[in-house]
């Protein structure tokens, strides 16, 4: 009737004091559900186009919070696989993760990470610290190293509101699970070099939330401008970037209307000046 339920009794693993990590628990009772387990280790397979690639993500902090913004395009080689993909994941009340790289694995990883945080919170009666959350994600990326060696690289970007220090923080990762805290802003994905340059020129320490969103949208526009794998705002199809904001009030996705309004402003601004806002030299 239910998995793991034998002879009217849950298998022992469900009842034992055991671990408060969902991933470890899953490895014990249902290892086949872990991300990428089914892909085996066939090194000779030409694997790069098995799953679409997800691209540019921008994160930036502002006083009292942090935001995460992502374009919507997924590509398979030079084909657009999906135009309205969601690469941002609310992982708990005070954190969110975005993924760049192999979409299929990345989505699984983000979903597992979300359950992982929740599972810990429910079993322990308290959430992990933001550092703890960041380290947990590093372990999971490290767990994907075998897959990364076959070409299924997943690079997450974690943002969170640290309730201890009452500020937004950004953590970036590399393919082997290296964890780096970024100050102020960061970007990952194929268009990230352009996005990062763009944010660098527009970023101020005293941005308010709306202006911070505007900066992120300008950066995504610049990434889409120069990187074919990043999608810009699609005014005809009404597909706009997604923006998540985390403050002391928790996680909030900015409404489509609000993003549409700001994105349209950005596009109109670019109609007058294709290279966008200029940084002051003095």
């Amino acid at each position, binding site marked *: 009737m239910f*998995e793991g339920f034998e002879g009217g009794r*849950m298998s022992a693993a469900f*009842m034992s004091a055991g671990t408060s990590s969902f991933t470890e628990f899953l490895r014990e009772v*249902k290892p086949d*559900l872990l991300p990428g387990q089914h892909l085996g280790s066939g090194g000779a397979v030409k694997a790069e186009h098995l799953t679409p690639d997800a691209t540019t993500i921008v994160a930036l902090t502002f006083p009292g919070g942090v935001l995460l913004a992502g374009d919507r395009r997924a590509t398979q080689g030079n084909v657009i696989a999906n135009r309205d993909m969601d690469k941002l994941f609310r992982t708990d009340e005070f954190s969110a993760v975005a993924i760049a790289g192999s979409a299929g694995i990345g989505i699984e990883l983000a979903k597992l990470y979300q359950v992982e945080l*929740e599972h810990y919170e429910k079993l322990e*009666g308290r959430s992990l610290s933001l550092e703890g959350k960041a380290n947990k994600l590093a372990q999971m990326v490290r767990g994907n190293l075998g897959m990364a060696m076959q070409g299924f690289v997943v690079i997450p970007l974690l943002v969170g509101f640290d309730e201890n220090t009452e500020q937004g923080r950004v953590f970036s990762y590399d393919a082997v699970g290296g964890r780096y805290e970024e100050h102020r802003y960061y970007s990952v994905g194929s268009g990230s070099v352009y996005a990062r340059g763009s944010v660098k020129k527009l970023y101020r320490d005293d941005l308010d939330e709306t202006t911070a969103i505007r900066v992120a949208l300008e950066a995504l526009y610049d990434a889409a401008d120069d990187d074919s794998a990043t999608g810009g705002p699609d005014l005809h199809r009404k597909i706009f970037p997604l923006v998540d904001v985390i403050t002391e009030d928790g996680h909030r996705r900015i409404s489509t209307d609000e993003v549409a309004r700001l994105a349209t402003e950005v596009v109109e601004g670019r109609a007058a000046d294709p290279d966008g806002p200029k940084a002051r030299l003095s």
Partner: protein
Amino acid sequence: MSMPFYVAPEQQMKDKADYARKGIARGRSAVVLQYEGGILLVADNMSRTLHKISELYDRIGFAAVGRYPEFENLRLMGVRFADVRGYQFDRRDVSGRQLANIYAQTLGTVFSESLKPWEVEIVVAEVGDTAAEDEIYRITFDGSIVDEQGFVAVGGSSEHVSNQLKDRFAADAPLSAALNAATHALAHENGEERELEAGNLEVAILERSRQHRKFRRIHGSRLTSLIEEGKRGTAATAAETASDSGDGNGTGDADEADK
């Protein structure tokens, strides 16, 4: 070598049930009831860290009384089951009914196969999109499962608490009034009358209108102010009743004291 005594199965079951009931009766009760915004869970619990109430999944809460290590085991099992299932399929595919069934089967097996039954009684509550879709299940130590309507009390003198609650229960009551009704019922457990304060209570809600996860604990100043609000509300109602009928506080306290 001594011969084992023969004990009739009926007697064995009866003994086990008596044992479990006595164990549960040693602890304080818990109540789960609907209010206008969802489902309210209240337990008489001095501890701030050993919870009797907890979240199982997005829309599903858990309340338990009896032996802590035993219901804690059940709670872990429920969270793990729900998380595996939600991860494997979809978050909407985890239901209170499944969890209640699993608990019932587990407790039933323990009751019939082990020498010592588990001294626990639990409630699984799931908040729906509308009040009509709310589900409240009560599962007892022997694995019996009952689908309750509106409200339920578990614990040693659950029948008594339940009767107290019946008089004041209204599915569309505001949170403070529902909390007041629950507190009143718990305070009159075992025919005694106590004053329950915020420090004695563990309170949580499954809030229908909330996004994502509906479970939320209520403690600290919010709990204190809700209790105060509930008291004022009851006082106002009592005054109204008094002026309407000329009969003192129509809360049923007097009736209970007579018994």
